[in-house]
């Protein structure tokens, strides 16, 4: 099977030394790839490059075989719209839960439709897409669709943020530390949503510093240390017989950051 999104030989960083150096990895449809490593090792930078926030200093990012930085802006926007992303920090807009989840669907519509629905929204409550309800159901938040996003707990907000990423039915889901600082129950809901996304054929990439989480949910694991990918492979193999000594220490909890 071909990879949905592939990064090859990515080097990126600021003048005072690269944050990422020659990193290569890819995610296939219907799998969860965990990118593990301590904080500050370049996971967020890598995910932002995959989401096309920035162009890498060198290296290639391909989506379904096409170099995303060689294509036209319009085509790149289309590709971006096949990728959903969840962030570590609270990132909900000050609007209702349903409006947050509908955001990605709304920006994909024509301006004419958007203006028309904004006007009808002033006249009465808007009807939401089935996709919004379905995405909220995935994270168990459908009953809170009309709540103000600002009134949610951190865990609920993160679940809604993941529903927002899922609502436009992306081919790739990038999740950057989605469960750091969350309690076990919310973490479990989010991990279940990741598995459900994988089972729907979505390519899921998860950045986490939690080795146990990577082991629980991922099919493949890539270990990032100081901006380089020091090991990657099937999750069971990486955890049971790592080839890199630092990974072994990391897995055994002897190397702590």
């Amino acid at each position, binding site marked *: 099977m071909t990879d949905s999104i592939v990064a090859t030989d990515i080097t990126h960083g600021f003048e005072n030394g690269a944050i990422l150096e020659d990193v290569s990895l890819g995610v296939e449809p219907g799998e969860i790839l965990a990118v593990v490593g301590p904080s500050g090792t370049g996971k967020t930078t890598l995910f932002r490059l995959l989401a096309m*926030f920035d162009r890498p200093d060198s290296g290639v990012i391909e989506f379904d075989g096409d170099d995303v930085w060689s294509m036209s802006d319009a085509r790149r926007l289309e590709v971006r*719209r096949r990728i959903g992303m969840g*962030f570590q920090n609270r*990132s909900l*807009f000050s*609007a209702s839960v349903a409006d947050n989840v509908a955001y990605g669907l709304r*920006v994909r519509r024509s301006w004419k439709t958007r203006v028309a629905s904004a006007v009808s929204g002033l006249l009465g409550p808007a009807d939401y897409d089935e996709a919004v309800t379905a995405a909220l159901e995935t994270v168990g938040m459908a009953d809170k669709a009309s709540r103000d996003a*600002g009134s949610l707990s951190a865990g609920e907000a993160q679940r809604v943020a993941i529903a927002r990423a899922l609502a436009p039915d992306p081919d790739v889901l990038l999740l950057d530390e989605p469960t750091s600082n969350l309690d076990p129950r919310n973490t479990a809901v989010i991990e279940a949503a990741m598995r459900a996304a994988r089972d729907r054929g979505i390519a899921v990439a998860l950045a986490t510093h939690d080795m146990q989480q990577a082991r629980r949910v991922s099919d493949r694991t890539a270990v990032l240390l100081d901006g380089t990918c020091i090991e990657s492979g099937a999750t069971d193999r990486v955890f049971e017989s790592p080839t890199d000594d630092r990974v072994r220490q990391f897995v055994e909890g002897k190397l702590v950051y």
Partner: protein
Amino acid sequence: MFGLGDLNLTYLVSITLVSLYVSTAAVLVSATLGLPMALAVSFRDFRGKAVVTSIISTGMGFPSVVVGLLVLLALSRSGPLGEFELLFTPEAMILSQTVLALPVLVSVALSAIQSVPQDLRDAAFASGGTSTDVALLVVREARYGIVTALLAAYGRAISEVGSVLIVGGNIVFSDGTSFTRTLTTAITVEARKGNIETGIALGGILLALVLAVNALGARFRDRTPSGGRR
């Protein structure tokens, strides 16, 4: 009533209308120019950005008589805008009030826009938003601050005396209706004549207008709670 003396209703209404027309037009022009400026300064990184920002905040404290003098020079027959023959018209007053209100509006709007967390801009982009979508989202998130900016600009415009006196000329037609006399400049006239009570009554009207505009702004803010639909 209230010792209004020789004030008649036509005169009162006409100076109030001139005040409202000039200030509202100045705020509309300021908003049309200022909101895109605030967005541009906030979104773009360019050399001298800090200088531009500090010029804008300096503009907030710009003495209105100096602005009046500069606008007078610009509009005078030999000035760069002399050919439009705007001096001593309401439009000249709109111009000088715009110069005064614009920095207030841009400055307050800019700080509101800049206080929208980067995380939200990132989320809008990652949700498939174009740069226009991200800008619209930021404006929406900063809407309370932007309303405050409009109110502050309105307050600066409507309570202004010095520059409108210089470029407007404080003119009243022979039938007793105002051409370029505003509530504020009328107060200076009454005070000079010793009609303190009339001046205070006009001041009351001015205050009531400012309060009404602020109440309108507050109503807008209350009507669009953070959970409001777009």
